[in-house]
């Protein structure tokens, strides 16, 4: 058995440094959420509560877009939570590494489990299997330290700034652009493309269904399409 390393302080610093570049992604996204939320009619307390309690940008913007379309609450929650379902996968992937930590620690790790902290941490755990549990925990909290406070702060900045941005800047369109920007890099395999294509096609053709229910149908069909494409391609590769 390999000797486990025990230097949580160094691990925390490594995590912090690894996450630092993501500040460039987090700040504009949080500012945008602040601006858009304020325009959608949320007051400062509401939009800050959302950023602090939910701490998941894509789902927050999804909820805002549907609130503005006056969709029913149940539809809004189902759609926004569907955006966050990927985090169940993150949670499952981290469980073997930090499942033995105290309940208190796991409660906090769960709260801070965002795209960036997950992606950086899982990479580190796989690259350095010799890390002990305290080091893994320290690394994880290192990754979130530059991210979370800036997320809250930049949301507030966006909300305060928002009312001063004139309509000529067409900020209405910053939301779709932002969504497209985060989706583009997600399309890593043909299966991702198929899922995205089905999602767009079905959503557009079912746009006449009231309360954005067409989107939920599109999402379910797209998930199935992505998974099926993956199976199909894997099989073909095996036979080739």
């Amino acid at each position, binding site marked *: 058995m390999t000797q486990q390393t025990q230097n949580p302080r160094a691990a925390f610093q490594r995590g912090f440094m690894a996450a630092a570049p993501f500040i460039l992604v987090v700040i504009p996204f949080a500012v945008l959420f602040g601006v858009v939320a304020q325009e959608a009619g949320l007051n400062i307390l509401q939009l800050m509560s959302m950023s602090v309690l939910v701490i998941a940008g894509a789902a927050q913007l999804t909820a805002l877009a549907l*609130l503005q379309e006056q969709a029913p609450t149940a539809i809004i929650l189902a759609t926004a939570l569907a955006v966050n379902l990927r985090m169940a996968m993150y949670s499952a992937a981290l469980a073997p590494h930090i499942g033995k930590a105290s309940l208190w620690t796991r409660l906090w790790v769960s709260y801070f489990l965002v795209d960036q902290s997950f992606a950086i941490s899982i990479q580190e755990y796989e690259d350095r299997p010799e890390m002990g549990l305290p080091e893994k925990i320290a690394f994880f909290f290192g990754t979130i330290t530059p991210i979370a406070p800036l997320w809250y702060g930049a949301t507030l900045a966006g909300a305060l700034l928002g009312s001063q941005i004139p309509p000529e800047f067409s900020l209405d369109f910053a939301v779709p652009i932002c969504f497209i920007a985060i989706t583009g890099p997600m399309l890593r395999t043909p299966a991702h493309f198929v899922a995205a294509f089905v999602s767009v096609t079905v*959503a557009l053709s079912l746009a006449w269904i009231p309360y954005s229910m067409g989107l939920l149908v599109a999402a379910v069909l797209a998930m199935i399409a992505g998974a099926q494409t993956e199976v199909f391609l894997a099989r073909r590769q095996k036979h080739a």
Partner: protein
Amino acid sequence: MPDTYQIWTVIVGLAIGTYLIRFSFIGLIGDRELPEWVLRHLRYTAVAVLPGLIAPLVVWPAATGGQMDGPRMAAAVMAFVIGLWRKSVIGAVLGGMATLYLLQYLMR
């Protein structure tokens, strides 16, 4: 404009639901592995929801009263191409908005 009660219900519901999703395996299920077919579907949740959410906003933008709009369409295509090609979120946002501003300026 959405009413206060609905806004708070969405905030609290989304907060609790998202937390439970995050806590699920770390907190309750522990070391057990997810079946492969579940993982396979979870891999596509984000790309299944977000494109379908964006598409109508791009094709029928609210700011133009639902009329198709050339500059917005071009901006969306630009953001998509840059995001796909450079794998850069920031680059895609900047490129998309720059395209929108440029075309709106030229078409004034």
